[in-house]
């Protein structure tokens, strides 16, 4: 825990520098986005990424909901109830097969089948959404790779929504305040007519905090960190575990990874205590 705390503060510090604009990090890390490469191409910058450990999510059925709740509460994301037409969401779940629908999983392990999988903006290294924006109201921050949004510049053309291959972006069809019961004054509410999405909690990073959805996860179910730091937890997990990304074939270089190893490979799992209902070795 201590180690990760230290790693994290370092990262937050770098991000804060990035937020102020001019920095050596920005200058040296700039080469990465053009080539579409990530870790290797900009080894001296920070490249924030998230690893969602689906093995661990199988232990706590309500954790995903709590992550969503934490994010949406912290960011004043409106809730319009059962109104899919006006829906706004930064992080949500789809079942595993839908989340990875282009991969066509068949006869998969019981613990993955239909599993609610958290989806959010991937903060792609080569983001099509920022490429199409006619006003640079959404752009990729060089210092740490966060795909940012300027709600005061966005003209609401929704081209970025059209260009995102992951459905990560929402448009405010109506005044979002109508869907908010209590407003967190620490975060701006948006106005009608602009696009919004997950920002990797850049405001919390600047304050030295973990992203809200990561903070809810007490057991590293979601790990957040710098891909360019070989000692970081995200790098460790990616080196040791089997992780996949959504639609990686499109070349967008999504930076949200999903660990899909068998949960029984987790050391703290006693073989009998696998996912409820998985009843032993019936996986394909």
């Amino acid at each position: 825990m201590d180690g990760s705390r230290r790693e994290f503060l370092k990262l937050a510090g770098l991000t804060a520098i990035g937020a102020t604009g001019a920095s050596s990090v920005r200058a040296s890390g700039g080469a990465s986005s053009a080539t579409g490469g990530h870790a290797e191409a900009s080894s001296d910058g920070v490249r924030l990424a998230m690893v969602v450990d689906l093995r661990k999510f199988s232990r706590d059925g309500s954790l995903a909901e709590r992550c969503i709740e934490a994010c949406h509460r912290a960011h004043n994301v409106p809730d319009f109830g059962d109104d899919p037409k006006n829906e706004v969401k930064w992080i949500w779940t789809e079942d595993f097969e839908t989340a990875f629908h282009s991969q066509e999983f068949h006869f998969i392990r019981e613990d993955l089948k239909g599993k609610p999988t958290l989806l959010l903006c991937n903060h792609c290294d080569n983001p099509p959404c920022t490429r199409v924006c006619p006003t640079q109201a959404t752009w990729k921050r060089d210092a740490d790779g966060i795909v940012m949004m300027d709600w005061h510049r966005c003209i609401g053309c929704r081209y970025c929504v059209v260009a995102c291959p992951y459905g990560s972006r929402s448009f405010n069809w109506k005044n979002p305040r109508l869907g908010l019961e209590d407003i967190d004054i620490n975060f701006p509410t948006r106005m009608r007519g602009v696009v919004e999405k997950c920002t990797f909690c850049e405001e919390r990073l600047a304050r030295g905090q973990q992203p809200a959805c990561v903070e809810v996860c007490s057991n590293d179910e979601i790990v957040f960190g710098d891909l360019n730091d070989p000692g970081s937890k995200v790098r460790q997990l990616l080196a040791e575990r089997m992780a996949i990304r959504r639609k990686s074939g499109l070349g967008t270089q999504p930076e949200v990874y999903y660990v899909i190893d068998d949960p029984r490979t987790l050391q703290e799992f006693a073989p009998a205590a696998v996912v409820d209902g998985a009843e032993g070795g019936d996986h394909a």
Partner: protein
Amino acid sequence: MLEKALSGNRTYWTWIFFLLAIIGAGAACWFWQLNVGLTITGLSRDVVWGFYIAQFTFLVGVAASAVMVVLPYYLHNYKAFGKMTILGEFLAIAAVIMCMTFIFVDMGRPDRILNVFLHPTPHSMMFWDTIALGGYLVLNILISRVTLSSERRGIAPPKWIRPIIILSIPWAVSIHTVTAFLYAGLAARPFWLTAILAPRFLASAFAAGPALLILLALIVRRISSFDPGREAINKLAEIVTYAMILNVFFVAMELFTALYSDIPEHVHHFQFLFTGLEGNSTLAPWMWLSVLLAVVSLVILINPATRRSETTLILGCIAVFFSLWIDKGLGMVIAGFVPNPLGQVVEYAPTLPELTISLAIYAGGVLIVTGLYKIALEVRGQMKA
């Protein structure tokens, strides 16, 4: 010259007020939309572009099609189009203005439209489309003004306008190419991710636009002493025929690639369009109507006898126009969003206010065409009393 649009007989003014009434209804809906947001449309998180953007796309084609009269006349000195060029250019002006209005009403924050110019972004196709359309509007206003005022004074147009007219030819092609690039470069949307999109846009534009121009010219001939001439109409009809054949050919290319390769992400969109997907077949009847109209139009147009007979030609042009309107003004944009990037089938249908606003923009275009055509006819002294 503009004052010539402001005098006219009773029928003229009844027509004008009829159009203004539609525009008024649309304006009221638009103010409502300004106040509560685009939530009054049928658009949603999954289908973020719909009827407005589809009309924009279709009308860019109509605008570009002016080149089909300008090119033969100025580049090949094809005299029969002499009287038609101004009609084509005026139609282009009206179409571009409608395009811009459709974009404007589609914006979430129209109050920030200047951001496009304050933060010019060359890596966005929308930036280039803005330049292409704006430039095309300026070109056509300039060209039509200069040539018409020379005509009024009975002199030849000044020499300097010729290079500008020549420039307007590739420019017309560019507006529809860039509009296709808005769609065709998106990894997220397999339906549009096809190299044939821009050629297909151009082919359908060069069929639908001149078909409309034939219809307009025949209407104008009825209500004034203007006569486009048999030869001009016949030549335009031939252009419509070739363009329509090319368009159908391109569609077949697209269908072959998608269906033979059998890649689900490509096939699903066509299934949604023509047979319905997971029980959602809202567009299927429309698409089959489009196919039927295309077949009817080709039968009429390819056969020289029916192409030259005015009554059947009118039917053929109407069939071409509506077939392509359904294809581009309904199917092309909406099918790109269904299924969505997660493979889910979602619903979209335009709402009444959305349709009213769209109708009003069309009425605005018709108003502009009416006014401009009237000016042209007055200048030539061809207006009936």
